[in-house]
């Protein structure tokens, strides 16, 4: 209740329209020269002070990438990307890596403050219930262009046995864990963008929750693209050992620019027996202007492996940003009775294009998956749900339920649904439902008769439409997400 009403206040207080996160931060940067070749990869590896094996891994990925082609099956359209025209490394200039927050460039701290990201170590009172304060603490890893600038609450987490650090640090400090898991969920040559990421990834988060540990707070990474002509290639690896529990949040913004910027991340999750990983994203990269100029190309590979019995991976995403979104957070359900979930809201407006969905690959007996996707298309945008549910021969008694709803606002946008359902086990059950509709005139009239403006009425009805997904988000994120929905749809009615 509190979250929801607070949201409405905030929605109403958002008076200025457009993208609020589009400012640029003037920071002295250290760039790699433009272009991609083995030397650049060696340079990235050297800057990160990586061991030899990591460099080899990158070079192999690069060799694979050279033989691959950009995927063309998605319903997205863009001019050719000049891969040789990007900086593959950009980092704020610094002396040594910041050991504590006091060493972080004050300009950077100011920027994160402006974005509302709590880098200061203090409890964040988001809820009203003081008993839950402990749980509403959030540890943050902030990634600025190519590097992690700060990770908070490290000490508290270390006490619980949790490792939460930039992946570049993990490569140095926990090589055995990284070696064991990196690239095992998303192989280096999985697809064009994953291969590219494997070659040039610069930073991202690493999380390891040991056996039986319930992570004492929400973990979160905040991604910010700031520099011009740079790609962001972060890599996240989360491992939940037997019986471990973790909730991880991810947020992203970028300055407002006329050029398109590439973001090609890879996220790998591994859940062992009885482990649970909840991964929530509020994606708000700069979407481009009203005429479709500029904006981020968000080409992301996210996959989780439920390796253990009764393990569970739950993806929740609210996608409002990016000029193009190409993203299918997936679950490979290997363990017996393992559970995969995908809850998604994707909003496109103006000239945005989104092709997003999930894959649920059922391998293990009794594995279950749930897919709830809500797509909202406004303006001249195109919004596609693309999803695969595959029941392999061993997936006895496996279950899937999919609900896929699209809402069209205005008559210049497109809403598309492309599910693939494949079953090779007779005891497996799949149910899929999809609908497409618009906001009914009588619903709008009803709200307006009660005094709501048309825009508020649309916001309210859209939030209602997305409720089944929004309720899956941690409360702080739900508030943020609801605001975003309203802001993203500004100017789409009337």
């Amino acid at each position, binding site marked *: *209740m*509190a979250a*929801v*009403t*607070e949201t*409405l*206040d905030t929605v*109403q207080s958002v008076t200025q329209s457009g993208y609020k996160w589009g400012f640029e931060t003037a920071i002295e940067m250290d760039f790699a020269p433009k272009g991609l070749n083995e030397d650049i990869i060696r340079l990235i590896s050297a800057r990160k002070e990586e061991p030899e094996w990591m460099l080899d891994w990158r070079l192999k990925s690069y060799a694979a990438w050279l033989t691959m082609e950009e995927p063309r099956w998605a319903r997205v359209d863009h001019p050719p990307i000049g891969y040789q025209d990007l900086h593959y490394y950009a980092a704020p200039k610094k002396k040594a890596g910041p050991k504590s927050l006091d060493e972080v460039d004050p300009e950077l701290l100011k920027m994160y403050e402006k974005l509302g990201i709590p880098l200061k170590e203090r409890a964040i009172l988001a809820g009203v219930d003081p008993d839950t304060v402990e749980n509403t603490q959030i540890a943050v890893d902030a990634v600025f262009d190519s590097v992690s600038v700060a990770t908070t609450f490290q000490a508290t987490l270390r006490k619980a046995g949790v490792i939460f650090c930039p992946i570049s640090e993990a490569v140095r400090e926990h090589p055995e864990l990284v070696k064991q898991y990196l690239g095992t969920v998303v192989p280096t040559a999985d697809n064009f963008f994953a291969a590219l990421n494997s070659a040039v990834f610069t930073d991202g988060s690493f999380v390891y929750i040991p056996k039986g540990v319930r992570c004492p707070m929400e973990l979160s990474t905040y991604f910010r693209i700031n520099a011009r002509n740079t790609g962001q290639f972060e890599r996240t690896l989360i491992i939940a050992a037997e019986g471990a529990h973790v909730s991880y949040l991810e947020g992203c913004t970028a300055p407002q620019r006329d050029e398109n910027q590439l973001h090609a991340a890879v996220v790998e999750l591994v859940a062992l027996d009885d482990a649970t990983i909840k991964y929530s994203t509020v994606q708000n990269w700069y979407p481009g202007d009203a005429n479709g100029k500029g904006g981020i190309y968000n080409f992301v590979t996210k996959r989780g492996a439920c390796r253990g019995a009764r393990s569970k991976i739950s993806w929740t995403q609210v996608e409002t940003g990016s000029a193009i979104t190409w993203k299918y957070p997936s679950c490979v359900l290997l363990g017996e009775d393992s559970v995969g979930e995908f809850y998604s809201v994707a909003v496109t407006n103006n000239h945005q294009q989104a092709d997003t969905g999930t894959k649920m690959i059922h391998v293990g007996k009794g594995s279950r998956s749930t897919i709830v996707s809500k797509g909202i298309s406004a303006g001249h945008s195109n919004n596609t749900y693309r999803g695969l549910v595959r029941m392999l021969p061993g997936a006895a008694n496996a279950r899937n339920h999919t609900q896929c709803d699209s809402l069209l606002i205005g008559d210049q946008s497109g809403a598309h649904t492309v599910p693939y359902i494949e079953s090779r086990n007779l005891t497996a059950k799949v149910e899929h439902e999809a609908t497409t509709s618009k906001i*009914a*005139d*009588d*619903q709008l*009239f*009803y*709200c*307006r*008769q*009660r*005094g*709501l*403006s*048309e825009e*508020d009425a649309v916001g*309210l*009805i859209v*939030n*209602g*439409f*997305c*409720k*089944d997904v929004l309720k899956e988000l941690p409360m702080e994120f739900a508030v943020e997400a609801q605001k975003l929905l309203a802001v993203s749809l500004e100017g789409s009615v009337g």
Partner: protein
Amino acid sequence: MLDIRGLTASIGDKPILKGIDLTVPAGEVHAIMGPNGSGKSTLGYVLSGREDYTVTGGSAMFNDADILAMAPEQRAAAGLFLAFQAPIELPGVNNANFLRTALNAIRRAHGEPELDAVQFLKLARAETKRLAMPDDMLKRNVNVGFSGGEKKRNEVLQMAILRPKLAILDETDSGLDIDALKIVADGVNALRGPDFSALVITHHQRLLDHLVPNRVHVLAHGRIVRTGGPELAKELEKSGYAGLIAEAA
């Protein structure tokens, strides 16, 4: 309060209202009766500004303002409330949320401070209690999964919270049991005062027993064919509309 002159309106090319003259002075409750399809709901929709209805002539002044020129939400802010004959479902939209958003929109329009969540809940709970409605009414999604009677009661709850100056109740009593009927009547009576008027569309004398209207109008074929005191409703209850309409034709 409300002054309608020569109002004509159509849906598409089909004329529905064919010249309505109706004045409801401040502080009065008027009943509108009439056979199915005569245009009663249409009158309510036209006054509240539903889009598929085109006003083709006449005027409607509400406290000296031309309401026909206003957007639906402006009419609501001016104090007009329509209890829908068939209330609309809003999946996923929480009832309390909806009401608070509406109430604050109207307060904003009047330059009044908005209510925060706590203030609002206090007010809403008081009203649900007064109307003998279960508290969980506020938690549920607007009209979703409500029974017919619950939907009607929800309309009355909304009216009680939004405190309009003019309430149009479109068959809010239809399909209600005797207790619920009393709730509707209490809802209206509670608002009664020198600054409140109501247009009550109904088929039943029973509601009028509780409300005691100042005037009763009979609408047939898009025109008001007869106006009288409360006794007219009783007469209609006995003799039906047929005679009246034939007489008017």
